[in-house]
C-alpha cells in the first residue's frame, strides 16, 4: 500500500462523512415536512432552511462516487453493480427529492402537498437504503474471485442491515430536528427540540443493538479492536452530548454533535474495513484490498494535485454561502414581539 492509496481511502471516507454531515440534515428536514410541520406555512418555513444549500450538500455524494470511480475503480465496479437494486432505490429517492423543491414552488397551491410528500418520502428512502448498503457491506458479501458480487435477498436485508438502515434514518431525522431548532423561530423550533429530546432515547436502544450486532456479525472487533472501540465510543459520546445540548437548549452544540455522530459512524466503517474496501463472505482471498483495487499512482497523483488546488476554494465558498444564510427563518406572519424574545 502506498501513501497515496491510503490517502484516497481516507479522502473517500471524508467525502462520505461530509455528505452525511451535510445532506444528513437535509434528509431530516425533508422527513420533517410531513411529520413535524403542521401546515403549508410551516413546511415553507423549514424547507427554506435547506433551500439554498441542499443541492451543494448532495454534491458531496456525487463527488464521493466520482472519487471512488477515479481512485478505486474495482471498488466502485463491485459495489455499484453488486448493489444494483438498492442503488436503484437510492436513485429513485434522490430523484423525487431533488425535483420536489422546484416543483413545489412552481406548482399550483393545491398540488404543493404532493411535492412535500415526494420530499419527505425521498428523504426517507435515501438514508434507509444507504444504511442498508453500508451495514450489509461491512458484514461481508458473496464476492467471487473476479470481484463480482452475486448476493441474495438476505445478504442485503438481514437484522443488522435493517437496524443500520433504521439507525441512519433516525440519525438523519435527529440531525434535521437539531438543524430546524437552530435555524427557525416560533412554534416549530420548540416542537423540534421536544421531538429530539424524545427520539434520542430510541437512538440509544438502536445503538446498543447495533454495537452487539457489530460484535457478532462483523470481524471489526477482531481485526481493529482499538479503532472500532474508539469510534463506537465516539458515536455514543456525541449522541449523549447532542441529547444533553438539546435539553439545555444549546442548539449549535446539539447540531454539531449529531453531525459528528455521523462522522464517527463513517469513521467506524472505514477503520474496520481497512485495509480492505470490500469484504468477501466466500473467502478472504477474494476481499478487495486498497492495494489491488486502486488506480495507478499516476492517476492518484493527478487527482491529489487537483484536490489540493480546488478543495480549499470549494470549502471557502461553501462556508461563505452558509454564512450568508446564517439567519433564522420565521413564519411570514410572526409577531414582532416573538422576534425580540
Amino acid at each position, binding site marked *: 500500500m502506498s501513501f497515496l492509496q491510503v490517502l484516497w481511502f481516507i479522502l473517500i471516507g471524508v467525502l462520505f462523512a461530509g455528505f452525511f454531515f451535510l445532506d444528513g440534515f437535509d434528509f431530516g428536514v425533508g422527513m420533517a415536512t410531513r411529520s413535524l410541520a403542521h401546515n403549508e406555512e410551516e413546511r*415553507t*418555513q423549514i424547507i427554506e432552511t435547506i*433551500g*439554498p*444549500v*441542499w*443541492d*451543494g450538500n*448532495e*454534491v458531496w455524494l*456525487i*463527488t464521493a462516487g466520482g472519487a471512488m*470511480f*477515479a481512485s478505486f*475503480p474495482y471498488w466502485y*465496479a463491485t*459495489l*455499484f*453493480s453488486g448493489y*444494483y*437494486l438498492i442503488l436503484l432505490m437510492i436513485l429513485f429517492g*434522490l*430523484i423525487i427529492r*431533488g*425535483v420536489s423543491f*422546484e416543483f413545489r414552488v*412552481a*406548482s*399550483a397551491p393545491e398540488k404543493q402537498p404532493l411535492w412535500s410528500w415526494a420530499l419527505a418520502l425521498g428523504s426517507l428512502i435515501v438514508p434507509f437504503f444507504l444504511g442498508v448498503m453500508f451495514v450489509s457491506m461491512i458484514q461481508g458479501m458473496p464476492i467471487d474471485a473476479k*470481484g*463480482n*458480487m452475486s448476493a441474495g435477498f438476505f445478504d442485503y436485508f438481514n437484522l443488522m442491515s435493517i437496524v443500520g438502515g433504521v439507525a441512519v434514518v433516525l440519525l438523519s431525522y435527529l440531525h434535521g430536528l437539531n438543524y430546524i431548532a*437552530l435555524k427557525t*423561530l416560533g412554534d416549530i423550533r420548540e416542537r423540534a427540540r421536544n421531538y429530539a429530546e424524545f427520539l434520542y432515547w430510541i437512538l440509544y436502544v438502536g445503538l446498543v443493538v447495533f454495537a452487539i450486532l457489530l460484535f457478532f456479525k462483523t470481524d471489526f472487533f477482531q481485526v481493529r479492536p482499538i479503532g472500532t472501540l474508539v469510534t463506537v465510543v465516539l458515536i455514543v459520546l456525541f449522541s449523549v452530548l447532542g441529547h444533553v445540548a438539546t435539553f439545555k437548549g*444549546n*442548539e*449549535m*452544540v446539539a447540531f454539531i454533535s449529531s453531525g459528528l455522530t455521523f462522522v464517527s459512524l463513517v469513521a467506524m466503517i472505514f477503520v474496520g474495513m481497512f485495509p480492505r474496501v470490500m469484504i468477501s463472505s466466500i473467502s478472504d482471498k477474494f476481499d478487495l484490498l486498497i492495494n489491488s483495487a486502486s*488506480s*495507478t499512482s*499516476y*492517476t492518484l497523483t*493527478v*487527482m491529489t494535485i*487537483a*484536490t489540493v488546488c*480546488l478543495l480549499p476554494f*470549494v470549502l471557502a*465558498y*461553501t462556508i461563505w*454561502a452558509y454564512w*450568508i*444564510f446564517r*439567519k*433564522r*427563518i*420565521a*413564519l*411570514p406572519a410572526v409577531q414582532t414581539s416573538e*422576534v425580540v424574545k
Partner: protein
Amino acid sequence: MDIVTLARFQFAMTTVFHFFFVPFSIGTAFVVAILETLYVRTKNDAYKKLAKFWGNIFLLSFAVGVVTGLIQEFQFGMNWSDYSRFMGDIFGAPLALEALLSFFIESTFIGLWVFTWDRVKKGMHLFFIWMTCIGTLTSALWILTANSFMQHPVGYAIRNGRAEMVDFFALLQNPQLWFEYGHVIFAALTMGGVILAGLTAFQMLKKDTSAEAKGLYKKSMRLGLVMATLFSALTILVGDLQMKYLIEEQPMKFAATEAVYKTTGDQAPWTLVGIADTKKHEVKYNIDIPVMLSVLSYGKTTGAVTGMDELNQQMKEKYGTTINGVEMDYIPPVNTLFWSFRVMAGFGAWIILVSIIGLWLTRKKKETLYQKRWMLWVLALTTFTPFLANTAGWFITEFGRYPWTVYGLFTIQQSISPNVSATSLLVSNIVYFTVFTVLAIVMIGLVKRQLKNDPTQVQEHDYAQKILDPFDKGAF
C-alpha cells in the same frame, strides 16, 4: 431478453432524457445571466423582471438535469462494471473533477442566486448567476473529456488488463474533445436562444397582452433570435470541422452517416435520402447529388470516400474477426446514423433559417414579426427542434462507435456487468421509464403554468422572514 440489449437500451434512454435538460439548462442559464447583466448595466427594471421570469424556467430544467445526471454517474458502475474496471483509471478522474470543479460551483451559487434577490448588492447577485453559468459550461468540458477518450483514446497504456493513464494533459489536448465541446456548447447556447424566442412566441400568440408585457416580449424575442442565429452558425461551423476530422479518425462512422458501402470514385456523389439494406449492403430509394460528397468531405470537387465494406475488412485484419469469442462485424447501424445525421443537420439548417428571417422581421425600421401570427407559430413550434437535433447528434456519436465502448480497445460485449441479472435490468428500465414519463409530463405542465403569467407579474417567491443570527444567541 439478453442483458447487453437491456443495458444498452437503458443507457440510451437515460442519457437521451438527461440530455434534453442539460443543454436546456446550460442555454437558459446563459440567457438569464445576459438578462441580469443588462439589468445591472442599464438599471432598466424590465430586464430584472425578465431575468426572474426566465430564471424560473431555468430552475425547473436545472432540477431535472441534476437528478437525471445522478443516474449517469451511478450507472457506469451499476450496468457497466467491467467497463469501469477497464476504464476507471482514466474515466474516473474527469468525472471526479467535474464534481469538484463544476458541480460544487453551480449548486452552491444557484442557491445563492435564488435566495438573495434584493438582499445583496446587484453586482454580487450578478456574480452569482455568472458563477452558476460558468459551472454549467465547465461541467460539459469534463464529461466530454471522458467521452472523447472513448471516441479517440490518447495518453494511455494498456497494462494489467486495463487502460492506464500516462498523460493527463493528452486527454485535455485530444482534438476530438475540442470539436465535441465546441459543437455541444454552441448547440446548448443555440437551444437557449431558440427556447427563449419560441416560448416568447407562445406567449405572444395569446390575445390579451398588456402594453408593458408586449415590450418585455419584444426584448426576449430579439435576444433569443440573436443568440439562435449566432450560435447555430457556430454550431454548424464546428460541426463541419468535426465531420472532416471524423473522416480521418473514425472513417467507419463517417461512411455510415453517409451510407457509403462501396468505396466511391474520385468524384463522390452524395446521397441526400435513401434507405440502406444492411443485409445486401446497398442503398435503395436513394436520391444522389453528384460530386457533393467530395465537396462536403474535402471542400473540393475530387476526393474518394472509403466505403464500409473496405473499412470492415481493414478492421477485421487489425482487430480480429472475433473478440472474446464473439464474431465481430464492425459496421455500425447504418440507417440510424444516416437518418440521425439528416435530422440533426436538417433541424440545424431550419433553426438558422428561421432565426435569420425572425431577425429580419424584427429590425428597427420595420418591425412586422409581431403582427404575423403564422411566423409566431413557426417560431413557437421551432422550440422543440433543438431537442430532436441534439438527440440525433448524440445518436451519431454513440451509435457510430459501435461495436466499441472505447474505440479500438474495448467492446460493448466486454463492458457489461456480468453479475446483474436480466430481471434487475428489466426492473430498472421500467422504473426509469415510469419516472421519466412522470417528470416529462410534470415539467411540461409547470412550464405551461409559468408561461400563463407574463413577465410583468412574475411570481415573487413568498419567502419566510429571516431574522436573528444563530451565532448571536446563547446557542453555544
